[in-house]
């Protein structure tokens, strides 16, 4: 009798847990992705010659400084926040030469396509959970670098 009660309890618990788990799985929550893209300039100089540039968020700067690069300072050139519905694509102009296209593949997977001066440069498919960064970058003049940082918006 006691064993039956125990087994019944476990079965009921499993059912409840499965239900709760189903309620919290990514597929059950809203599939829209609220994203933030930043165009960033990396340099060894402490100050940017462009007064429109401002230092990046400390949190992003801290993560960028963990990368194996020599640049000590990172400046935000542009920032865009946008929402991409599941299976949808969103195009954002980050600068006159830089454009990104973000596709929401579902389950926090994104496909980031970079377009430079109208021509495709590269396409990256990667999971992008909250608090993680997907960073693309390349060389820029005078031993500096450009970065496009994509993350889920808070």
């Amino acid at each position: 009798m006691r064993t039956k009660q125990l087994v019944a309890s476990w079965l009921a618990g499993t059912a409840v847990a499965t239900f709760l788990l189903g309620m919290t799985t990514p597929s059950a929550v809203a599939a829209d992705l609220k994203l933030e893209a930043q165009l960033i300039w990396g340099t060894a100089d402490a100050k940017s010659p462009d007064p429109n540039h401002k230092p990046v968020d400390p949190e992003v700067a801290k993560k960028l400084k963990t990368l194996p690069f020599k640049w000590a300072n990172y400046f935000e050139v542009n920032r865009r926040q946008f929402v991409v519905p599941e299976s949808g694509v969103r195009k954002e102009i980050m600068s006159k030469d830089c454009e990104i296209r973000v596709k929401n593949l579902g389950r926090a997977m994104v496909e980031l396509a970079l377009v430079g001066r109208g021509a495709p440069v590269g396409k990256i498919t990667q999971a992008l959970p909250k608090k993680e960064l997907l960073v693309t970058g390349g060389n820029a003049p005078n031993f500096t670098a450009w970065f496009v940082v994509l993350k889920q918006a808070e």
Partner: protein
Amino acid sequence: MMDHASQLELQAFFDGELPENEAHDMANRLARESDAAALLTELRNTSKALKGFESDIKLPESREFFWSKIERDIARLEQAEPAVRAPEPLLARWRRLLVPASAFAALVLMVVVAARQWELPIGFGSGVRPAPVLETALADSGAFTYRDQSEGITLVWLSYPGEKGVADSGPADTLQ
């Protein structure tokens, strides 16, 4: 030889329970039949023996007090018998089932939430992330990817220069 009914009749005679006319008949029979007389003698001897045996047993207390003790013991044993359990209410049965079930569900939920929070690799779609899939449009791509799991950062480095012709002229010494 006396049959069983006659034996019982003789015993009733011995106990003085027969009516007078039957007792008279039994007395005549005893005078005639030796086996009836022998049985009567045996009954008398047995009765004497039993009376003598009972007279040797003396209670250390009065008869009333002795029986009152037995009565109290019987009452005590009756009270000590387990009471018939009343049927358990349905709500109590459900509570007994749901309390451990809820505890188990809460435990599972905590594990799931913790796994999502701290990204434990327990197979819920988080944990160690696969390397990004990169397709580059550049012919001589020096592209590479770098992943720092602890910081939660994925880098895809492209050889595409920010301003064509300028970055290409400098040495590729951007890495430390």
